């Protein structure tokens, strides 16, 4: 989970941790507390955050249909939840493997690049207004990872399995 801790535990098979190792351990433990507190805060914020995002997205992308906006919101609820967990675990690979590897192509196929970008920007702005700068520093790398990976050039719509069968 925490590579720093894992490395320490691996090295400390037959000896006590050195003072500098213990300092690293304390640092990681303190950071874990901060991450846990932030995770709880993100969970509590989720409902208000996405209600606000939905309203702002509807006015910013008035041309988009409610179905499309709902789909985009779903993508960013997913990205938000998996980013929160990846932040807690301090593990970018969690976000990559459990969500982004699977979701990226789906987002691209929906051809909603502009709405996706607007949603991600609004989400970030809403978060910045609700979290402290230290908290933003903790979660931002994961949200940026999601934004960078998901907002790729669009590809053609493939339809549904039933349509292809027909």
């Amino acid at each position: 989970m925490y590579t720093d801790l894992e490395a320490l535990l691996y090295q400390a098979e037959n000896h006590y941790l050195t003072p500098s190792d213990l300092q690293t351990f304390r640092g990681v433990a303190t950071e874990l507390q901060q991450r846990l507190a932030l995770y709880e805060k993100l969970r509590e914020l989720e409902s208000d955050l996405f209600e606000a995002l939905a309203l702002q997205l509807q006015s910013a992308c008035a041309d988009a249909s409610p179905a499309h906006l709902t789909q985009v919101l779903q993508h960013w609820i997913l990205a938000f939840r998996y980013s929160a967990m990846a932040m807690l675990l301090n593990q970018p690979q969690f976000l990559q493997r459990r969500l982004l590897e699977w979701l990226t192509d789906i987002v691209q196929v929906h051809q909603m690049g502009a709405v996706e970008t607007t949603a991600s920007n609004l989400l970030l702005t809403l978060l910045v207004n609700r979290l402290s700068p230290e908290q933003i520093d903790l979660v931002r790398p994961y949200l940026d990872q999601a934004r960078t990976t998901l907002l790729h050039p669009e590809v053609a719509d493939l339809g549904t399995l039933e349509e292809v069968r027909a």
Partner: protein
Amino acid sequence: MINVSELLAAPYLPGNYFAPDAYVQGDYESGLIENRVGARLLAMPDTLLQALYAGLAEEVGPSAGMVLFQCGYWWGKSFYRRFQAEVSDYYQQPLAQMEMAAFLQCFKQCWRTHGWGDVEVDLDYSAQGFLVVKLQHSAFAQASPDLNRPSCFTEAGLLSAFFSQLTGRDLHCIQTACETLGDDCNFFVLGLRDRVKMAEAWLEEAHDHVTVMERLCQSQPLS
């Protein structure tokens, strides 16, 4: 008006079901590996695959390919059943109603997580009645002896059964490019048996995948 509370109230929001760290669970003590719903998985070492190829070549000679295709076909039937059940259950919708992009992503992730290589389904020829599957880093190709012809028989059988069950049509599968022949990747073409069978003669004449596809698209079904 978007109902956000309904979106957030879902018991869970599905992600990548086949993420390797979530899908494959192992127990060092018992030496067992299982998937996330508790079904047993079988690890096939290179040595076993090589022994299968060598043993079949010894026992049945030139029919080894047909035997492996049939093995793949039966395997594909069970594989489709499990895939369909697990994916429908996890994503809370029947496979047929899944968005195509989501289905293709699941298929790709599933293939990769099982260690069978990187698979991509190309729907560009669907209007002509063909489905092309591109496969890279195939474990079966790597273990195969050099047969001087496409040799991913197991995968061809597996794909044939899988897509036959998925589409409800009897689809045959022919391999048109193979990593064992020095190609960059393996290509498989799926279609109705009468139409796709025509490719066998062109492959015998050593035509490449692109040429075979051109000819298949221009061809008429055998009467």
